[in-house]
């Protein structure tokens, strides 16, 4: 019977990690529904971006208050994993504070964890106040419907509870308190439990220990369903993020082939394609659904934390227009999830559901309101490029549906006929010289 806790712990751990692994597999499958895109170039710059932006939080701190608080929670999360490692070893082997054998260093480590736990607790409370009391505008935009708002608060409650449990666990561990080494914060909590019997204290300590580690396992599995997924995906997303100048839109290769053919007098447009040469003209120009986007764009949709820095910088959104770059990312993610569930429900194949990203989720009005100014791209702390999705969807509207606003069609006709967006004759192009 002595081994019962160890066995229960092992089962919980296996279930928790197993379920998480299953969801990660699904996540990867969904992301891979996108087109392939070559991101194998410039590895050193990519590693550097990941180190600076994801690991170093360089873009988070551009908004100093949120950035500072975020860094605390982030460092706390990373460091406290050493503690989690100890908990897992203890849980599996039935030991108690297995790392304490390393001597005085243990006190320093646990002391640091305790300080961080307190700082994380305070930061999370401040985050909660920013969202729910101060009601910062960007957390209350129209796309922040009930789930995104609740999701954010659940995460904060979760972290508050986990930090509290960690400190209570230490405070009620009488042997640990007696050592008086590393109990920097918990020594002030310990007196709250004065007068409790040894047995009750031990029970509280064990309960806190168990709820803490089970809570972590539950939280791990909550990630997949939550914007909190960014704690994992921020790393690949910053690695695969764009390296070209922000103004450089990609040139569609399929179009290049067509244009070259149209311009080259030596090519016979009626000639049959050579044997073995693949017809690389895509079935569709631009994007009307998630499968038309590339996998980096889909990865970004899962990475988005809905922090709304993009939307608060967007000139269209600032002036009351419907476009919100955050909503573009949230819609892409929601639709991708829907497509994923559709595939799961239909034995691995997508069954037409009469919906798509365009119109069902993202309206044309939103797409046409974008000035392509790149403010959203600049603002994103994890290298998401909502503009690329907007442009791909405009491409679908224009090249597949000829559905540009009338004035833009006029502009395009002018370019085609006169080489200028206005109806002036190309032969008058140098008239300014003599005016």
């Amino acid at each position: 019977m002595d081994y019962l806790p160890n066995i229960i712990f092992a089962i919980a751990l296996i279930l928790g990690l197993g379920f998480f692994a299953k969801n990660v597999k699904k996540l990867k499958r969904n992301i891979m529904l996108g087109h392939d895109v070559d991101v194998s170039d410039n590895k050193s710059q990519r590693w550097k971006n990941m180190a600076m932006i994801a690991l170093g939080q360089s873009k988070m701190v551009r908004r100093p208050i949120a950035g500072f608080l975020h860094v605390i929670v982030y460092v706390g999360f990373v460091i406290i994993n050493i503690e989690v490692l100890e908990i897992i070893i203890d849980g599996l082997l039935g030991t108690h504070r297995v790392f304490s054998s390393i001597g005085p260093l243990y006190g320093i480590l646990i002391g640091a964890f305790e300080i961080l736990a307190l700082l994380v607790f305070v930061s999370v409370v401040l985050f909660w106040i920013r969202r729910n009391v101060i009601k910062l505008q960007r957390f209350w935009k129209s796309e922040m419907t009930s789930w995104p708002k609740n999701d954010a608060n659940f995460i904060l409650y979760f972290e508050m509870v986990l930090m509290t449990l960690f400190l209570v666990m230490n405070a009620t561990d009488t042997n640990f308190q007696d050592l008086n080494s590393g109990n920097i914060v918990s020594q002030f909590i310990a007196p709250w439990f004065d007068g409790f019997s040894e047995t009750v204290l031990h029970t509280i300590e064990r309960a806190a220990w168990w709820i803490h580690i089970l809570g972590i396992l539950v939280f791990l599995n909550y990630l997949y369903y939550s914007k909190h997924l960014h704690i994992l995906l921020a790393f690949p997303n910053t690695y695969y993020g764009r390296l070209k100048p922000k103004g450089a839109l990609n040139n569609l290769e399929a179009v290049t082939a067509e244009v070259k053919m149209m311009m080259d007098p030596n090519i016979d447009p009626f000639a049959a394609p050579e044997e073995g040469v693949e017809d690389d003209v895509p079935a569709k120009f631009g994007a009307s659904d998630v499968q038309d986007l590339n996998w980096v764009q889909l990865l970004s949709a899962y990475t988005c934390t809905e922090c709304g820095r993009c939307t608060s910088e967007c000139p269209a959104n600032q002036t009351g227009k419907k476009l919100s770059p955050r909503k573009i990312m949230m819609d892409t993610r929601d639709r991708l999830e829907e497509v994923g569930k559709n595939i799961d429900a239909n034995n691995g194949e997508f069954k037409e559901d009469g919906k798509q990203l365009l119109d069902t989720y993202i309206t044309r009005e939103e797409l046409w309101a974008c000035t392509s100014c790149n403010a959203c791209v600049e603002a994103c702390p994890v290298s998401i490029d909502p503009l690329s999705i907007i442009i791909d969807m405009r491409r679908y509207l224009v090249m597949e549906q000829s559905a540009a606003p009338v004035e833009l069609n006029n502009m395009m006709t002018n370019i085609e006929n006169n080489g200028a967006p206005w109806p002036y004759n190309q032969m008058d192009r140098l008239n300014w010289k003599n005016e």
Partner: protein
Amino acid sequence: MSELLKVPTMAEYMAQGKQPEVLFWVGCAGSFDDRAKKITKAFVKLLNKANVEFAVLGTEESCTGDPAKRSGNEFLFQMQAVTNIEVMNAYEIKKIVTACPHCFNTIKNEYPELGGNYEVMHHTQFLKTLLDDGRLTIEGGKYKGKRITFHDPCYLGRANNVYEAPRELIQKLEAELVEMKNCKRNGLCCGAGGAQMFKEPEKGDKDVNIERTEQALEVKPDIIAAGCPFCNTMMTDGVKVKEQEGDVQVMDVAELIANAQDL
């Protein structure tokens, strides 16, 4: 004055068997828009003053395709791009300067993949090199001590990280450079980019150019400096809507420098 403008074309250079130092890509706005033509002429005056051997394509120039690409018409964009590249490659163009950040961005970033590889400079960058090489001198003149705020064009600033060249030129005028609430990488769009220039804005509380003009007026400038013909139009309209056109001018950096020297 205008009869003094020397504006040779590439065809003329070719006929003489010579190659100019740089191609001045005028752009559609610079060629046809009445306000932007003044910027074009101001820049040419500076090029003439500094004895730069430049040429324009004239009637052989065509739209870069920027508004077509950004509104989603990749076919039209590439048709324009390939045609322009053929013309420029035939003239063996190496270096291009333009006063339009949209042309600058497109030729610099999107033409190389289609076979057009050139060194591309924004006119503020080019003027800065002329200054550094001592080919051009800038005096404060009438702008000495004036409050000037610079509106960063998205396609020059955020899109290509050019923030300093226009500012250095303004400071050379011994003007007081004041920064808006949103500047440099946080600059606010004028509302014209992404082909918005050619259509009515979507419904909202206000137009983007009004918001941006309000930000500019907040710092109480004598002059709002721009480095893009489209920004210039949007800000000029904004100033008019705010009924400040008597007090605040919207000027291109090239115009400021040319005017300061009474060119």
